[in-house]
């Protein structure tokens, strides 16, 4: 449904999006995940024809955005980062305007507006001026304008922005229900959102795709390691030296907890459960072991690992992302 090839956006002094390639199939919900400023919005703006890419190609439903923009745009419903609403219009007038702009025939406009008002839970406010609505309602009006012409492709930039928890659940349900007959791309920096709604995830950082896959797949593959945490009564430098030498230990962090207590956190590759060995080492040295446990890496941490520009972590980034993009 959507094909993106080698998309780049360069400005005079910096490259915001670099060589992004992916495709989205009919009926898929693709999550576009990345920290703020990663290039998510810029990619979406190029995808919807608002910005011209510096290089690369966008194709929507078989139409090239550069050659056939009107036809390509006709298939898309788009919610930008900030809902593009006119404060002086009523919700109903605004949605009717959006419908006409997308070529909904005059006699069908009212029905289209009524149905989208119901879907986006705007039943309380159809005749209010948008200026008088809360942020949450304005955001839903923004989503409604993207759906009013029943587009095949729906692109939502941070759709749950500014909503309260109850509204967030409602909107996630709405997005899921869209998947039946639409193709959806949604961007977010909120992880649970991706886990709950998306069938596929693309993680973008500093303008490039760093990982791609199904949420559970991504979690499973990236959760290649485990973290071990312990609390011991030991001199900080000694225990650090002792544990550092164990095979496969990375990201070792030793911090003093109180007078003579230290907390240690370290990561090991999966299949290399060092807990028994560590216990033996600590006790063998005559230190007191107060606590020892293993903690799985959450998707949140994986995301952080992938998107933190920390040199120390860049090794662990390269491997799993390659596995995923080629697998």
């Amino acid at each position, binding site marked *: 449904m959507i094909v993106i090839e080698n998309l780049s956006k360069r400005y005079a002094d910096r490259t915001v999006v670099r060589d992004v390639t992916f495709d989205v199939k009919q009926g898929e919900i693709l999550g576009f995940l990345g920290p703020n400023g990663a290039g998510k919005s810029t990619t979406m703006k190029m995808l919807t024809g608002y910005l011209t890419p510096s290089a690369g190609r966008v194709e929507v439903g078989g139409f090239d955005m550069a050659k056939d923009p009107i036809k390509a745009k006709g298939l898309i419903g788009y919610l930008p980062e900030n809902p*593009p609403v006119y404060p002086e219009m009523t919700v109903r007038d605004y949605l009717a*305007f959006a419908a006409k702009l997308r070529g909904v025939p005059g006699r069908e406009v009212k029905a289209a507006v009524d149905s989208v008002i119901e879907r986006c839970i705007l039943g309380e406010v159809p005749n209010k001026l948008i200026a008088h609505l809360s942020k949450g309602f304005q955001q839903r009006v923004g989503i409604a304008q993207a759906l009013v012409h029943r587009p095949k492709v729906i692109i939502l930039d941070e759709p749950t922005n500014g909503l309260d928890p109850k509204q967030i659940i409602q909107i996630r349900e709405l997005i899921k229900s869209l998947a039946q007959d639409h193709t959806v791309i949604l961007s977010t920096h909120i992880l649970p959102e991706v886990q709950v709604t998306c069938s596929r995830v693309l993680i973008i950082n500093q303008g490039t795709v760093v990982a791609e896959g199904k949420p559970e797949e991504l979690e499973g593959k990236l959760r290649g390691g485990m973290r071990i945490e312990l609390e011991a009564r030991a001199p900080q430098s000694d225990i650090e030296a002792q544990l550092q030498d164990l095979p496969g230990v990375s990201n070792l962090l030793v911090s003093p907890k109180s007078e003579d207590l230290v907390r240690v956190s370290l990561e090991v590759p999966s299949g290399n459960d060092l807990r028994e060995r560590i216990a033996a080492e600590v006790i063998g040295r005559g230190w007191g072991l107060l606590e020892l446990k293993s903690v799985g890496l959450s998707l949140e941490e994986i995301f952080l690992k992938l998107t933190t520009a920390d040199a120390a972590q860049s090794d662990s980034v390269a491997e799993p992302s390659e596995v995923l993009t080629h697998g």
Partner: protein
Amino acid sequence: MAKIWAIAQRELKAYFVSPVAYVVAALFMLVAGYLFSLILYHTREASLRGLFANLNVVFLIVAPALTMRLLAEERQRGTIEMLMTSPVSDRDIVLGKYLSCLLYLAFLMALTAIFPITLALLGNPDWMTILTGYLGIYLLGASFMAVGLLTSSWTNNQVIAAVATFALSLLIWLLPSAGAVVGQPLSQVFEYMSILQHQENLLRGVIDSSDVLYYVSFIVGALFLTIRSVEVYRWR
């Protein structure tokens, strides 16, 4: 065409929902009425020629006030993103906006119908001259509006758009005086380009196709530049 009309309609509604349309119309009529009475009192002529000549100055101020928001506000609010990602060409966006200007200008003209009616009650005006005079000021007003739409496409600051429209229109207005400085043959070119020059025949009751053509090409040129300027947004 339906999309151009949808944009124009939305634009007009925006004028009339905010008090802009009414305030501009009321103040316009106040000034126009004042001029009309003064001129009538002094000349005692059943003609609108003097009024029309003076209304040009009013348009110089009204046009920036009406057009400054057209594209600048869309960009400032981010609503331009909705227009430009909808299946509407940049040309249709600009034409829709301009159509709303033309319609609002027609609304202002319709309000001034009270003046010829007053003349008809008092005397025997030459209707043909009044009609061509209306055509003359309508074309001039429409030209200033086209300049306004163009400058509004350059910035997302409405005040800058308004000041630029005013300055640019005034410069075009004053072209013949610059012609006097540079001398022949350039002065003839400047004379031809003067926006007031081409109105004279119309105010006198003569429709010369070259005058109408001047205004139409002026407007088409400004709209063309506006469309180009909107296209450039995509490269930012």
